[in-house]
Each structure stands twice: as C-alpha cells, then as structure tokens.
C-alpha cells in the first residue's frame, strides 16, 4: 500500500487495483475515468470489461470535471459516522458531457440550503478532507442552466 492509504475513512482504492487510477487522479488533481481502448465507450463505475464490446483492454482518460446535476439528495440522518458532524449535506449525481454522459457522485459544497435542480451546471474540484488520506471530488454550482442545454 502507498503512503496515502486512508487512515480512518472507509474509502480508497479497491484491493484488486481496479480503480487505483481514479484515486491517483484525485491526488494529481484530475478526474480520471475508464474508457474502452477498442470501442472508445466511457465506462463507470470501474469495470474489468467493456460492457459494450466486451474488450478487456480498458484505459483511463482525464475528464474535465464539469457537468449537470442528474439527481441529488440531502442527507439529514447520520448514516455514516464520518459525515455525522456535517449534517445536513447534499450529494449530487453528476452527468458528465465530456465522458459520454457517464455519471459520478460527489458532495456539493456551495450553499447547500438552496436546493439544487436537476440540470444545474456544476464544476468539480479536488479537496482534502479531514480523516481522509485521499482527496475527494467535490462540486459547486456554476449557475443554473436548464436541463438539456449544453448537450
């Protein structure tokens, strides 16, 4: 394991190494997702095979961390002790136009009292988090734009 192994947070690279590039990307300040080398289909969550063409030749590419809110949730109950001191918090599922519309999760860090709207444009950044040896992808609204634009 590396020096950046998480100390207390229950997240980080999978033991089989499948998503190591994702986490290394966060450290490097990049959002990296899988892409099939054969058919160029974007893949997420991490897989050993391309579900589209069944190639095992999967690469990683850097994606601009920008997209639109596909759905969201504001958590009020301390389901996770790691986030129990930060209630409530908003998690957004973000659709990435630069990665074939694949969707990634992340916590929204701007004014979370204002409900996000599906279709809101968001921009990601890579933030150090207490208790986590790995930076995490966080999102902020770039200004509300109606769903369907920028497609």
């Amino acid at each position, binding site marked *: 394991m590396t020096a950046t192994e998480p100390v207390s947070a229950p997240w980080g690279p999978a033991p089989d190494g499948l998503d190591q590039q994702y986490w290394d990307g966060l450290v490097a300040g990049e959002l990296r997702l899988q892409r099939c080398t054969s058919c160029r289909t974007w893949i997420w*969550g991490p897989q050993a095979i391309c579900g589209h063409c069944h190639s095992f030749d999967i690469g990683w590419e850097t994606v601009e961390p920008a997209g639109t809110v596909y759905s969201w*949730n504001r958590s009020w109950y301390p389901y*996770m002790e*790691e986030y129990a001191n930060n209630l409530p918090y908003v*998690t957004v599922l973000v659709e990435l136009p630069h990665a074939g519309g694949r*969707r990634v999760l992340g916590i929204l860090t701007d004014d979370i009292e204002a409900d996000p709207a599906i279709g809101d444009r968001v921009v990601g950044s890579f933030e150090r988090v207490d208790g986590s040896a790995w930076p995490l992808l966080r999102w902020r609204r770039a200004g509300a734009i109606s*769903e369907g634009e920028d497609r």
Partner: protein
Amino acid sequence: MRADIMRGAAAVVGVAEQHYRRGEAPHSEKRMTLEVILEACADAGIDPREIDGFVSYAGGPNDGAIIGGALLIDELRWSNMMWGGGGGSVAAAITNAAVAIATGQAECVVVYRAMSQEDTGRLGYAKYHYGSHFLAHGIGSPAQICAMRTQRMLEHGGVPRSAMRSLVLASYRHAQNNPTAQGYGRPLDEETYENSRLIAEPFHLFDCSRESDGAVALVLVSAERAKSLRPDPAYLLAGAQGAPGGYSELIDNDLDEQYMSAGFGPANNGKPGVAERLWSAAGLGPDDVDVVQVYENFSGPAVAALIDHGLCPPGEAAGTFMTVDNLTAPSGKLPINTSGGNLADSFINGLNLAVEAVRQIRGTSTNPVVGAKTSLFIGGPMAPLVSSVLFGHEDTL
C-alpha cells in the same frame, strides 16, 4: 416450454409470522425460524418432517441442511438461497419454491426469513455493503440511494410527492385495524407526516420502513395436495424476477431513464421485463388485480414499482390516482399494503407482506378486500434484482 407452465402448479397452504420491536427478539434467528416453520406447518396441516425444500433470500446462515437437520426431516431435496438483490429477491424466493414443486424436484417447500438485530445488525446501517465510490460521497445506506432515484422520479419524472404521502397514510390507516401492527393505535395524519423530520430528502421519517426483529415462513405444496389440505390455498399464478442488465448495479449509471424506475421495466433490448413477464405468464394484467402488497423499503420506490407494473400512471397522473381513499381497503380502487406493510405493520425484509397477500386470498386480512381473487406481491423495488409474484384464488385457475 410455455411461460405459463407454472400457472397454478403450486400453492401456499401454510403461513406464520412473528415480529418484535427491533432488538427485542426473544430468541435467535435460528430458533425463530424453527418456530415459524412449525407454526406454518400447523397452519397447513402438514407434518414438518414432510418438508423437503428450503428457500431463503438476502443472506443468512441457516440453510436447508441446518434447519432440515434440526427438524430431522425425512429428506432434503432443495436448498436455495436467492442470489443478490437483498429484499428485491423476496418474491423470487416464493417463485423458486413453486419451481421446485412444478418440476418435481421437491414436494413441500418452505420459504423463510428471520431477522434479529442482535444476530445480524440492521439493514439500514449495512455501511460496508456499499463501495468506496458511494461511501466517499456520504452515501452509506439504501435510504440515500433510493432517495436520489426518487428525487429524479419526482423532479424529472413529474410524479407528485403526494403519491408517496398517500401510500404512507393508507398504510397507517390499515394498521389501525390490525392489532399486531407496530403502528396500531398510532394513526397518522397529513400534517404529522409533512412535519416529521427529514431523513434523506425527499424522504421524511414516515417514508422509511421500520426494521423489526422476527421471522416469517410460507409453506408451498402442489395444487393437487393443496386441495386436500384446505379450502382456500393461494395458488401461484405467476412469478418473475430480474432487472434490465446493469440496473442499479453500475454506481448509478443505469441506462437511459431506468434510473428512476423500480427495475421491473423492459429489458435493454426492449423485450418484456419483470412486470410484463409476470402479466404474460399469469394471462392477466394490472386491471385484473384486486389487492397489492408492495415492498416499501421507502415510499418512493414503492410508487415507482406500481408505475412499472402499470398499476399507477406515470408522471403527474400518479398524483391523481394515488389518493388515500383509492389505496385503502375495502372499497379503494387498488387497496395497498393492507396489514400496514413495512411502514406501519412490521418489516421482516418484506416477507411479512407475502403473508398478508395470502391472507387476502383466504379472506382473513384485518382489512379484507371482499371477494379478492387476485393478490399481487411486489418485492424490493430499486434493488439490483427485483421480483413479483401473483397469487390467485381457486376461481382464477
């Protein structure tokens, strides 16, 4: 092979359930399992040693050899754990028992599930069930995952939140007639529902199921045997399980708008999914259903499941259909969760709902739908594998 080879081949002839407030089970899961199996056999008029098949789902160590060994059954022929889906495979477990009977693999199969907080903790806090790509973003519970899917159903799909509220209020109304329901004597009104604390938006407290300790068992035999045992077997008209490939399994990258469905919809190639396969095998459709028990881990997924089955229109019209009166027995258009369900009765991973579905065929529910001939049970919506089973009175054969 015809899809309807299963139709009416097997029937539920014995049921039993016990439930307690979570953490208050008087016995282990194994002991409770043995108790409800004996009770279900007594209900059926069957010697427990005749049981030769065991089916459960969502995990648990007490397999057919262990339980059958404890009961010293004559012979073990069938011992299956449904693979994946958690509560989504609850109805599939019943179908699996019927498959064994219809194909001659076994003659008397029991479907069971036991939950004790002391033995296995709580489902809602199964934190490490989810991987890093959920946990890192504060998502550690099925409640939150279902909440996000529900939010899209409301905001993008146009389903009014009142559809969820009506389902909850109808459940509590039913529970007031069911003395063993945990919500008995605790009526719920619209204002209390709306003012209850938020848990995982859009879910308020009352949108979330209870977790109970307890155990449930259902005994199935062939239709021929069933007729000799009792006047009111609940025949299995059809059962279906599955989900579109990748549904609820790819860290929320379900194809197209499958994300806001409950998983019962068409396959990725457009062919019939769980709901359509169920109707096709039964030779019936949503308009033929007299009463429904729908697994509501949370209210939103249950609404999505009703939409998937064609029992409720999608979008704005869902709010017009889903009124408390429409959902309440005896005279509602589609009585739902007539014991109080997972919300207001008890939650033994949903198998308690199957017992209520059988009671409706027998006419022994505390909220009977008079003359009910078809009784639908829908298993854990929004799980990676979902399932439904349709029971029928003898008249439907």
